[in-house]
């Protein structure tokens, strides 16, 4: 690793203080304990209800049926382990702050895989990146657990829900803290499984259980890429531990085909998990799960794992300009594509889902142009504001659902056309969600402004580097990224207006039952709202600070400096091969100019679209006419699902059926002829030969044998 690059003044600090981790294993272990407790309770509860069924009793999982034995313990254990894990992570973070840690701190627990030529330890790696991710996962995770206590209180599967949620956090922590690719893969697969379980949580609904399956299958395609990349890496380096692997990666040839293959395969994995083109299709469907799950897994944590993977492998990506350009390209096109779909969705969660896909695209754009810390920066701010948006949407749906349920109205509680004017009923939700909307739209000084703007700026700067590989391409990326920012501001404002402003469309009777969410739900909203404002201040660009009044000495590019030990190797490779990045955007203007332009544009878009949408007469879902023309294409998500079904799913099913018929001849012979030859005693053998079953088998066997003989003899 690069240890020689310590600046003079800090070198003394380095030798003086040693980083001492504070029970880091507990961070991972606590959620696992939570899972075991809640899981045992869920199984015990299942037994009880099964027994009740046996005794002929009725199972009432309906509203208001608070069974203390299934609710009390998970309500404390679920969020409790998260809070404890967060506190331990914070202690580690503070300890790391006070020392200069240049090498990742690796703690080995036991030898996991040892085959003579290949060894992997069950080890966790503590460094600036992993501790940051751990803080996000446990911190945001804790808030969402608290929110869930309120949101899920009427659900019969309460302990099961918390056991899945805890298990998810466990695997997510393995993913971010693991010290090697195989360990990361364990977490990678694990979060996929939990996501599958939680999407299908309300499995009685067929559509919802299908969504879970879809998520799982699409993720498997990505995981295939991850596995292949791992084996290529093993072939190249003979190890899969991060520290030795990345230090040896320095010796690789720049732009070599092998490193390009590895990084592209890794990106296939990342694209699956982080819902990028062409594997994004599962994420919008994943919204079938409970809304806090969407906030935790499908917005704040799991879906950002792909970004984490790229940043973790930044050394490899820096070595491959083609892979980096692919990452950036897929990212920016996904951002645009998803944003266009979000323009026409009416389901509040679908809007947020496509918005998430779009924002993930931004993150990939960032890491694709070598701005690894910036990608992580957007990951963090996005975790705050998108979790807030989802939880806010959850509060709205919760209220809508209750109101519709009480009035026996069978409208869709998630359809924004049925909402409108909710501001009056849910002021806290309304306020906090506007904060998040400003953040995602990129309006100064909300969190999203700093992170998104920096990604856009870095794209321009990278394209202008002295020896940038494809300068024109990056200019296109930059323009698309700017344009998408405007779309983002538009669809978010549309969502807010349709939900909270204008006249109320729920119906008179229904409106009487609309209430603000209980404190256990709005308190996490408030906390996230605060973070959505100040979250961006951890990384204010130097240039902005110099031009405008700064936000205190700590804020200036703190995150960049903090992540320096993780990303510097990649930056050196990039700078060495491509030269310094530009100071000017393609059409002139520096960082400050474009920051001002983009925030003004975003604000203008919010204001105009507010007026546009509020004036438009939104009709309730039942009365809304069918869309036509381009709007219809957008509403149907460019018909991608249908195309996939035609081109991939159906042919695969047909092939399987075909193979079955050809290879398993019994299906033809056995079923047709087998009926007659039951219990024929001695004639049995004869009849079997007559049916031809054994003959067919022997024929196939003989043909196979002849082929093998022929091949080997001639």
């Amino acid at each position, binding site marked *: 690793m690069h240890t020689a690059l310590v600046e003079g003044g800090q070198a003394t600090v380095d030798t003086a203080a040693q980083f001492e981790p504070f029970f880091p294993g507990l961070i991972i272990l606590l959620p696992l304990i939570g899972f075991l407790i809640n899981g045992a309770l869920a*199984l*015990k509860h*299942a*037994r009880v209800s*099964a027994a009740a*069924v*046996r005794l002929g009793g009725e199972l009432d999982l309906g509203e208001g049926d608070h069974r203390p034995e299934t609710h009390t313990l998970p309500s404390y254990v679920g969020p409790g382990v998260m809070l404890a894990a967060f506190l331990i992570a914070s202690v580690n973070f503070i300890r790391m702050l006070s020392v200069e840690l240049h090498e990742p701190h690796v703690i080995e627990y*036991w*030898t*996991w*895989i*040892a*085959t*003579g*030529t*290949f060894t992997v330890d*069950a080890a966790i790696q503590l460094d600036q990146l992993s501790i940051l991710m751990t803080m996000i996962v446990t911190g945001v995770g804790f808030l969402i657990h608290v929110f869930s206590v309120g949101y899920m209180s009427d659900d019969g599967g309460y302990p099961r829900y918390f056991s899945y949620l805890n298990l998810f956090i466990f695997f997510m922590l393995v993913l971010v803290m693991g010290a090697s690719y*195989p360990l990361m*893969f*364990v977490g990678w*697969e694990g979060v996929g*499984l939990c996501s599958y379980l939680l999407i*299908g949580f309300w*499995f*009685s609904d067929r559509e919802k*259980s299908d969504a*879970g399956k879809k998520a*799982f*299958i699409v993720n498997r395609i990505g995981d*295939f890429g991850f*596995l*292949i990349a791992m*084996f290529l890496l*093993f072939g190249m380096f003979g190890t899969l531990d991060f520290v030795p692997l990345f230090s040896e990666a320095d010796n690789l040839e720049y732009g070599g085909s092998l490193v390009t293959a590895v990084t592209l395969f890794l990106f296939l994995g990342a694209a699956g998990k982080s819902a990028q083109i062409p594997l994004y299709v599962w994420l919008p469907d994943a919204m079938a799960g409970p809304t806090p799950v969407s906030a935790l897994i499908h917005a704040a944590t799991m879906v950002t794992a792909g970004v984490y993977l790229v940043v973790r492998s930044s050394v490899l990506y820096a070595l491959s300009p083609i892979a980096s350009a692919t990452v950036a390209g897929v990212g920016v096109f996904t951002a645009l594509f998803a944003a266009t779909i979000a323009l026409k969705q009416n389901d509040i969660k679908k809007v947020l889902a496509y918005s998430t896909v779009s924002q993930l695209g931004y993150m990939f754009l960032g890491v694709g142009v070598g701005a690894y810390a910036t990608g992580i920066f957007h990951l963090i701010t996005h975790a705050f504001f998108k979790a807030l948006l989802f939880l806010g949407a959850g509060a709205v749906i919760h209220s809508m659902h209750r109101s519709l349920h009480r009035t026996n109205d069978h409208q869709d509680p998630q359809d924004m056309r049925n909402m409108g004017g909710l501001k009056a009923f849910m002021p806290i939700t309304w306020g906090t969600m506007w904060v998040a909307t400003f953040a995602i739209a990129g309006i100064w000084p909300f969190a999203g402004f700093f992170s998104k703007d920096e990604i856009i700026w870095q794209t321009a700067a990278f394209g202008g580097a002295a020896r940038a590989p494809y300068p024109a391409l990056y200019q296109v990326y930059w323009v698309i990224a700017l344009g998408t920012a405007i779309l983002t501001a538009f669809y978010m404002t549309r969502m807010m207006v349709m939900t909270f402003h204008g006249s109320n469309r729920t119906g008179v009777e229904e409106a009487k039952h609309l209430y603000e969410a209980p404190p256990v739900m709005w308190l996490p909203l408030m906390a996230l709202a605060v973070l959505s404002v100040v979250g961006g201040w951890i990384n204010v660009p130097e240039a902005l600070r110099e031009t405008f009044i700064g936000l205190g000495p700590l804020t200036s590019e703190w995150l960049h400096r903090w992540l320096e030990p993780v990303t510097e190797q990649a930056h050196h490779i990039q700078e060495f091969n491509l030269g310094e990045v530009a100071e000017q955007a393609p059409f002139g203007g520096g960082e400050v100019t474009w920051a001002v332009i983009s925030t003004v544009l975003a604000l203008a878009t919010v204001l105009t679209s507010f007026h546009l949408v509020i004036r438009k007469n939104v009709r309730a879902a039942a009365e809304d006419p069918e869309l036509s023309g381009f709007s219809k294409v957008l509403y149907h998500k460019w018909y991608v699902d249908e195309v996939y079904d035609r081109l991939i799913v159906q042919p695969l*099913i047909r*092939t*399987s*059926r075909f*193979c*079955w018929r050809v*290879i*398993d*001849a*019994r299906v033809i012979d*056995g079923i047709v002829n087998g009926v007659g030859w*039951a219990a024929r005693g001695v004639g*049995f053998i004869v009849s*079997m030969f007559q049916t031809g079953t054994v003959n*067919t*088998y022997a024929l*196939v*066997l003989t*043909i*196979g*044998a002849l082929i*093998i*003989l022929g*091949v*080997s*003899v001639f």
Partner: protein
Amino acid sequence: MTIDFSRQLHYVWALLPEIILCVSGMVILVVGVSGRYRHAHMAAGGSIESKSGDDLGWLALLGLLGAAMANAWLYSVTEVGESSMIAVDRFRLFSNWIFLLAAVLGILISFAYVYRQRLQAGEFYALILFATAGMMFMVGARDLIVVFLGLEVMSIAVYTLTAFNRRDRKSAEGGLKYFLLGAFSTGFLLYGIALVYGATGSTNVAVIGEAISNGEASMGLLSPAVALLTIGFAFKVSAIPFHMWTPDVYEGAPAPVTAWMSAAVKAAAFVAFLRVFMVGFDAIYALWYPILWWLAAITMVGANLIALVQTNIKRMLAYSSIAHTGYLLVAIAAANETAAAGMLFYLLVYTLMNMGAFAIVMSVSHHSEERLYIDDYVGFGWSQPLLGVFLTVFLLSLAGFPGTGGFMGKIYLLLGAAESDLWILSVILVLTTVVSYWYYLRVAWVMWMKDPETEGQHNRIIVPFPMRFALLASVGLILYVGIFPSAALEFARTSIEGLGTFGGGLIGQGP
């Protein structure tokens, strides 16, 4: 102790586990037909019969324990002198552990079935012991004739066990098919052995290897010989296109027999396959490697695709077992030490997870042959939580989910393949594994994610104590070797030492 092969008597020591098994098998046969048991069997009353059957089962377990002790003892002996027939090496002893494990699990899960189906317990348990002894002969053999002998001892016992449930048409049909096709394929194997003898003048595996590498063998005879042997083994491991018997036999055979044979017979055939090809035909790796390559590829792709559309869980598991044959064939195609060790490890894990899955299928079908459709598993997890969790673990392990033994096994096989530069095969292995997730998890899905249409349909499931113990041990071991695999991996690795030369990996290239 030292085993001196120049003295005939010492062969007794070298074959101690096999001898103990055969003797206990005969004892069980005799006890089984003795007055009391015979009478009890005739009696219509259930309880006496059950008890008598159980007694014979425990007796068989005792015999297996004796064989296990003998097997453990063999680790301490040293070989002196030339043995042309039987090997006393760690490779054989490791394989013996797999067979012993499979037999113990098989018997533990048979108790309730034997009772419910009113099978003749004495013959049933004795045949399992005889088959196990045959497997042990197969993998310990240094001579092709002994391989054949072991193979036949095993096969005849397994044919009989397949057709054991005479009242069931499917069982008889499966047994007959297995027998006819098995006899057919044994012909290939035997003809292959004859040709090898013709080409090299020996049936001793090591001598064959030397003759070939010294250039003394006649290549004209050798290439059809190797092809015929490949066909014979491919039938026993059920590689596509020699697999046709598998689904029928697995579906027809009594459920505990299916569980046991799907693991043990396959393991025995694979281990013998590996020894013969790696020690005997190492020098002509280039000749057989393309055949194995294609067999592995076709088996992996075909079996996984067909398993996708199965609705009967026994047939699904049968095709899954064929798919695993494909994965294991990759190890033989790779032909290096890592792959060989990986194969041993994989067979161990496979025995646990496959038998576990079959055992639960049995208990869902009430220890008989009903309710075998995947749709019968609706809501199973929630009404039988513990069994549900177990089956989920088995299925995840079969699919190769991280944290389970199945994942480690696949990693190990892939490492072996990577060492021989079998990149395309590795990619096929990974891709087909991706496909396999679908059909394994579909069962898990139905179990946990669907509400049963009729309430309480799984309430009558009975898991007798021996089976409960077997299941618990299997789950525990699968998770243990998944999370702390190093001891088992190391054990498998050291079991390969002294097997012989491995030159195959050096030649590795495309098919």
